[in-house]
């Protein structure tokens, strides 16, 4: 059965252009001012933040099944009960205030609503959120009356995805208080036509470049396959060398196969951001770094997880490995972690899914109605994106403690996290990444990379920007 192409891509783009041309929607007022009961309900459901209010008995999110968690990784400092009302709202709640509510509907000039209708008409009925990038210009105080407006930022497609053919639709929402912008959110969804019968339309196996391996270099590749970086070290004179060879250039001894296992750390000595032409097996742009190791050699590898504009010479990195298959693993690099956050394990019960969806004022049926969730292709109800954003924010702020402000959260969504699953949040401080900009405003920033894994894989990968002082009020305190 072939889905009739209701609209051509050109027609879709033309219609999208008309929606984009309308610009920002009229500001829509939040139903209620920012208020303590709603914050408290949110904290109760999402939980986990030190110094904010949560009753230990009701922090569902911290219900940890003892049999699944290594004892030394459980954060021991369960949040103390605190009933003192907060004066400001958790930043990740920004969207909560302006959710339409149970009986609400989208405004006629809402660009996302218009795009959804357009995509339904064009034959792309299913939707999945893929990215959510929130930037907080200042904290939002209890009592403030917020308003939101949105505009269509970008529409790209049609693209073949693992889920089926679809379009990526990005909108930008801006929240204001008395006309002053307080936060923005770039929200991207994939509207797609589910690839039901054509599961075989999975992405074709990408050709991958392999390394030619000789008797002189085999030890290195055996090392990467075993998860270690091996640096050739002359048995006679100790000289280290990479790439390796059969004879020590320092003393002339023939190689005996001796090596040292590198600590797995280093600094970027130089790097390339490759944009063009296509590279087999890579989604461009990619960063390839030449890393200087403390062992005294240099080594190339793809630098993963760092935005190209944040790479700089001198960036501390640590080794990682990209497994190509059973035989070949390539050395790769990630931004060096200054600190690791203790993992947080969340038992995703149906109650948690429902409570957090309602606490974020998200009444979409797939988050509370199992039958509707299954009809949508899931196995059970699953977490909504406002909750995921909240979990990431609370995970970082609980660890960071008071005096630390979240400036931005950038969320990339992966596998759905369904009721019955377990979500494990892990995080690393990659502060060096955050100091790449010249401006002093960025110097005090820390960047926390957060990953949330569930049974189906990575549910969320996120970057959280933390400032070590309170965000100055007003636009003059914002980005330069």
């Amino acid at each position, binding site marked *: 059965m072939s889905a009739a192409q209701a609209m051509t891509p050109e027609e879709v783009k033309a219609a999208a252009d008309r929606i984009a041309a309308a610009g920002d929607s009229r500001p829509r007022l939040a139903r209620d001012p920012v208020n303590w009961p709603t914050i408290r309900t949110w904290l109760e459901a999402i939980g986990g933040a030190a110094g904010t209010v949560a009753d230990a008995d009701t922090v569902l999110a911290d219900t940890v099944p003892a049999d699944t968690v290594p004892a030394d990784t459980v954060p021991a400092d369960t949040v103390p009960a605190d009933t003192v009302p907060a004066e400001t709202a958790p930043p990740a709640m920004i969207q909560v205030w302006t959710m339409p509510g149970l009986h609400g509907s989208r405004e006629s000039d809402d660009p996302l609503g218009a795009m959804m209708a357009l995509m339904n008409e064009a034959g792309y009925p299913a939707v999945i959120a893929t990215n959510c990038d929130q930037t907080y210009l200042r904290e939002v105080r209890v009592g403030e009356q917020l308003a939101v407006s949105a505009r269509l930022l970008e529409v790209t497609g049609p693209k073949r995805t693992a889920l089926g053919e679809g379009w990526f639709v990005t909108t930008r929402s801006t929240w204001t208080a008395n006309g002053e912008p307080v936060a923005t959110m770039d929200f991207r969804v994939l509207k797609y036509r589910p690839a039901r019968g054509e599961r075989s339309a999975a992405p074709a196996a990408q*050709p*991958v*470049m*392999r*390394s*030619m*391996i*000789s008797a*002189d*270099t085999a030890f290195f590749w055996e090392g990467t396959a075993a998860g270690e970086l091996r640096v050739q070290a002359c048995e006679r004179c100790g000289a280290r060398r*990479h*790439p390796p060879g059969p004879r020590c250039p320092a003393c002339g001894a023939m190689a005996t196969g001796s090596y040292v296992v590198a600590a797995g750390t280093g600094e970027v*000595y*130089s*790097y*390339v*951001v*490759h*944009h*063009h*032409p*296509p*590279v*087999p097996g*890579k989604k461009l*742009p*990619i960063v*390839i770094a*030449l890393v200087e190791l403390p062992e005294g*050699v*240099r*080594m*190339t*590898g*793809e630098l993963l997880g760092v935005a*190209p504009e944040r790479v700089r*010479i001198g960036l501390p990195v640590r080794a990682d490995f990209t497994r*190509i298959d059973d035989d*070949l693993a*390539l*050395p*790769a690099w990630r931004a060096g972690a200054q600190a690791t956050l203790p993992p947080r394990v969340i038992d995703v019960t149906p109650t948690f899914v429902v409570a957090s969806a309602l606490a974020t004022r998200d009444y979409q049926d797939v988050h509370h109605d199992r039958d509707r969730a299954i009809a949508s292709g899931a196995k059970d109800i699953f977490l909504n994106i406002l909750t995921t954003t909240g979990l990431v924010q609370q995970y970082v702020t609980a660890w960071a403690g008071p005096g630390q402000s979240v400036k931005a959260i950038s969320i990339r969504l992966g596998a759905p996290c369904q009721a019955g699953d377990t979500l494990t949040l892990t995080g690393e401080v990659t502060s060096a990444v955050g100091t790449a900009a010249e401006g002093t405003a960025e110097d005090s920033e820390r960047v926390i990379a957060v990953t949330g894994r569930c049974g189906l894989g990575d549910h969320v990968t996120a970057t959280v920007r933390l400032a070590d002082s309170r965000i100055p009020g007003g636009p003059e305190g914002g980005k330069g």
Partner: protein
Amino acid sequence: MPVISNEPVAAVAGIGATEFSKESGRSELRLAVEAITAALDDAGLAATDVDGLVTFTMDSSAEIAVARELGLDELRFFSQIGYGGGAACATVAHAAMAVATGTADVVVCYRALNERSGRRFGQVAAALSGMPTTSGIDNGWHYPMGLATPAAMVAMIARRYMHVYGATSEDFGRVTVAARRHAAANPAAWFYQRPVTLEEHQQSRWIAEPLRLLDCCQESDGAVAIVVTSVARARGLRWRPAVIAAAAQGSGPGQFIMTSYYRDDMAALPEIGVVARQLWRQAGLDPADVRTAILYDHFTPYVLLQLEELGFCARGEACDFIADGAIELGGRLPLNTHGGQLGEAYIHGMNGIAEAVRQVRGTSVNQVPGDGPVVVTAGTGVPTSGLILS
């Protein structure tokens, strides 16, 4: 190198080329034969005078195939030089050695390629990482990691150079602006009458940061041939001989093909330094004597590094050296007066040798006044070569 001493014995007597295009519509062998025929006509020699042929290992037309087409009964000297564009000036160096030793009398150096319409070097050649050779093993340290194009490999060194010496993308762009200005006056150039501004350079898209599209040479179809014979014989031919005052090859410490990332000083091209020291010594010259230079310009940053390695300026000072139009016609040291590979065509450096010959003859469309010697270099970032013609 004793055979090429202060008393030059070999000269370029003829140059020839096909048109430079993006789709020749002909075989590479045919392009080679056309260019060789043109070069022999230019010299005033017949095909039957040729007893030696030299080309690149990368050339697809073997000497014997060319000999068959030219109707050569005997071939006494044949040689292929490796390392991509680094072979360009070395073809002439080998020819000069053959002539100097009496091994051959008339040697033709040629390079023919449908590089744009056929195999494009700028694309990822995944198979290079799987060759069962030392080169394949070398490539295995870079290709699978995604560092798999010449631009990306050069970008790694360019980034380090910028970091160490404070060079900017605009500095690289000045090389392009000069080349395109020269090409704009050269009817044989692909970019004839199409100069670019520094602003256009800055607006061109990223290929491999810090390299933009306009930092990368073009891709071309075409062929060039160079006829080398003894100075004595050349004097009796059509043109004033372009005497080979010096010819050298060079490879540096820790040498790799495009990825010499493991040397102490990565912001340098020591292989060109090896060539430069030989050139100055053989010719008994120094940089101040040079009238104009043809510096291999597959990627703009390497023109800056070559100026430093050749001694036209101190290390790290090329950005200052090229400022204010110094490398444009009328400047202190006009570079790549044919438009270079950025502007004329990418014939793997062989078109640059032809331009150096024209400068010696006084027939360049962008003739630099004076009678000083002309320096030519070959592909950089690889084992390379160079010439001084006078």
